[in-house]
């Protein structure tokens, strides 16, 4: 791992290329490429504006409100925040072990969220790039274009997403801003009708998820020159895993491995995360840079999310997804895959795992249980961790004797992937930027690299499948050399 671009000696002498997605609700991002005098990319800064002040907003609020309130953090993965906050507050109310009904209902909700989020990302955001090509006509590169060219694929994507949303509605009470997960358990169980309603479609969802794995696998294997190398870089991996090392996206203990797949630490209780992870602050962004303390800031950063999880676990506990995982691992020939586009492949294996897990859970009568809440000895502090669609998500709270939150610290998936995304963009920019001109090709490729991580900076554009961009090229005196804007309709304005 090197940091040559992060430590430019005279950053102010470098010219800047700023890629400025237009400000929007869920936070927005901006990519700055600092060029040296030979027009080579010298430094990359990915600015993501989000969650600023949100932690302070939680402070002073009653703890039982937090799992519902934190859903405002993100319009795309509110369920992940709902569950992570609940898990942290389970610890506070002394209920680390939930009733079987409560835990299974929460699991079902979580896997519903994984399914809908992964389907959204793959079909709405990624297939347009992957099936049409990165440099295809922008106006066509969206789900509408996919529906025209590949109607079956589009229909499957839309149905998978809808099914995931129905799982959320049934378990959380509403498709958005549900309230069912509460500190110590859940406030409702499922009815037999609700189980049957979901069961009738679940086999179809498994089949379509399986098909999605096949599509991305085929793309990957048909163009290894692109898929194996685009934005590739070595790094550590981190995720939670079950006690036996199996994949579990709802609960487990922390495991990290290095770029060659060697375990760095394993089965660490996430209540102790502060002893493992430090968040580095940099002057040019509000987003922190977490790293593993044992390796230090320069070598300790890591990838989270599907690519990390599929390779960090020892097995996947459902049969179809496990067979796909084995094939994925075999493709690496004993070495972990670090290719940015392999995120998509891993993500679809997880979608298959989620669909299979949903089926298993739906057959479990505990879902109709009536024993939903636990309490125990009240504690002043709690940490909740889940594997959200985009990666490991930490919620950490301290609660006063008066029941108000006194401290909140969140490390969201996008923050965990911060350095990894910066590095991916740098790798891509090094290859596709040259000279004084901002080409469409550069825009497209940077977009594709960022999108592979599915960061929250693209939250608000998910529906459109477009990332509005503004690219400005300036010299070191601030003189404008070139400027290209691409709006949400994909139209470029010079």
């Amino acid at each position, binding site marked *: 791992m090197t940091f040559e671009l992060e430590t430019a000696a005279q950053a102010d002498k470098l010219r800047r290329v700023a890629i400025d997605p237009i400000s929007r609700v869920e936070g927005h991002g901006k990519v700055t490429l600092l060029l040296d005098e030979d027009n080579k990319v010298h430094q990359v800064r990915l600015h993501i504006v989000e969650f600023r002040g949100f932690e302070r907003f939680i402070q*002073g*609020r*009653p703890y*039982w*409100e937090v*799992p*519902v*309130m934190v*859903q*405002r953090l993100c319009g795309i993965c509110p369920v992940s925040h709902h569950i992570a906050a609940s898990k942290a507050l389970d610890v506070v109310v002394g209920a680390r072990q939930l009733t079987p009904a409560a835990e299974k209902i929460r699991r079902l909700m979580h896997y519903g969220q994984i399914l809908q989020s992964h389907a959204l990302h793959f079909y709405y955001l990624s297939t347009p790039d992957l099936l049409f090509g990165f440099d295809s006509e922008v106006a066509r590169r969206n789900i509408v274009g996919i529906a025209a060219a590949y109607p079956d694929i589009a229909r499957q994507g839309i149905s998978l997403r809808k099914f995931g949303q129905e799982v959320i509605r049934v378990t959380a*009470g*509403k498709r958005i*801003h*549900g*309230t*069912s997960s*509460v500190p110590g358990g859940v*406030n*409702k169980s499922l009815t037999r009708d609700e189980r049957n309603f979901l069961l009738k479609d679940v086999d179809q969802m498994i089949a379509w998820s399986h098909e999605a794995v096949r599509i991305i696998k085929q793309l990957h294997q048909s163009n290894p020159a692109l898929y194996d190398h685009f934005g590739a870089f070595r790094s550590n991996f981190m995720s939670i895993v079950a006690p036996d090392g199996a994949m579990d996206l709802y609960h487990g203990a922390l495991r990290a491995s290095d770029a060659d797949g060697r375990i760095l630490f394993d089965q660490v209780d996430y209540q102790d995360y502060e002893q493992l992870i430090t968040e580095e602050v940099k002057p040019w962004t509000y987003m922190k840079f977490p790293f593993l303390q044992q390796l230090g800031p320069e070598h300790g950063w890591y990838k989270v999310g599907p690519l990390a999880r599929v390779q960090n676990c020892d097995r996947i506990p459902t049969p179809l997804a496990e067979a796909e995982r084995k094939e994925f691992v075999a493709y690496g020939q004993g070495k972990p895959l670090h290719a940015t586009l392999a995120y998509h492949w891993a993500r679809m294996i997880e979608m298959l795992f989620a669909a299979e897990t949903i089926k298993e859970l739906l057959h479990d009568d505990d879902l109709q249980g009536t024993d939903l809440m636990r309490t125990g000895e009240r504690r002043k502090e709690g940490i909740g961790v889940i594997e959200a669609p985009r990666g490991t998500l930490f919620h950490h709270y301290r609660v*006063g004797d*008066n*029941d*108000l939150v006194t401290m909140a610290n969140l490390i969201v998936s996008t923050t965990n992937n911060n350095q990894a995304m910066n590095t991916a963009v740098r790798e891509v920019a090094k290859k596709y930027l040259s000279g004084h001109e901002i080409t469409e090709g550069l825009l497209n490729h940077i977009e594709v690299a960022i999108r592979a991580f599915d960061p929250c900076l693209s939250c608000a554009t998910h529906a459109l499948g477009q990332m509005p961009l503004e690219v400005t090229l300036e010299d070191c005196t601030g003189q404008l050399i070139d400027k290209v804007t691409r709006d949400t309709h994909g139209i470029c304005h010079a």
Partner: protein
Amino acid sequence: MSDDSQTGTFLLDDEEIPFTRGQTVIQAARAAGKYIPHLCWHPDFKAHGSCKLCTIKANGRLGAACTLEAQDGMAVENRTPELDDKRRTLLQLLFVEGNHFCPSCEKSGNCVLQATAYDLGMMTPHFDMFYPDRPVDASHPDMLLDFNRCILCELCVQASRDVDGKNVFALSGRGIQSHLIVNAESRRLADTDFSATDRAASICPVGVILKKRVGFAIPIGERTYDAAPISQVDIAKENT
């Protein structure tokens, strides 16, 4: 009520409503199964006519249905577009004066302000939000006060004084400055004799006076106004 106590009828939106002597328009309407939107009035307490949401037109003149006594032969307009429009404006002002964020409020689904806004078809707050800076009082072991949502209906003041005999709450200040206070030198709820079993502990129509640690215990679908709008629920309560 028995027939011999009936002293007359009046017209409410062209329907004949019987009343007994001393009954207000809102009381008679409610007894007859007719909903007049209201916030500060509660059937168990004396009306004080402060919120003006119950504004009706009686014989062409604006008045508060919760304080106006019914009179024989009177013609009352209630759910007219003109009056509902005024009511929506009053609601919008209440929404912007406080900090009401329904999606993360534990009173959502059980809140009279929210339910009334739904019933009247209020779609946006329309005015600029004030974002007042109001504290939360969590000093009491069992009860929480979140002043951000107070609509100054005074029901808690009445309940504590007239039912609980305690005087825990009071309104202080005038006009836009007016706000709810706790009657203790420290102004902290913990320093009063307030108890979770007081009538005042369960009277608040919005999410100010809350029992601790039970927020969100009732799932969506089972809350007071989930199945039917307040215009039906309010009347049903009277007639069961």
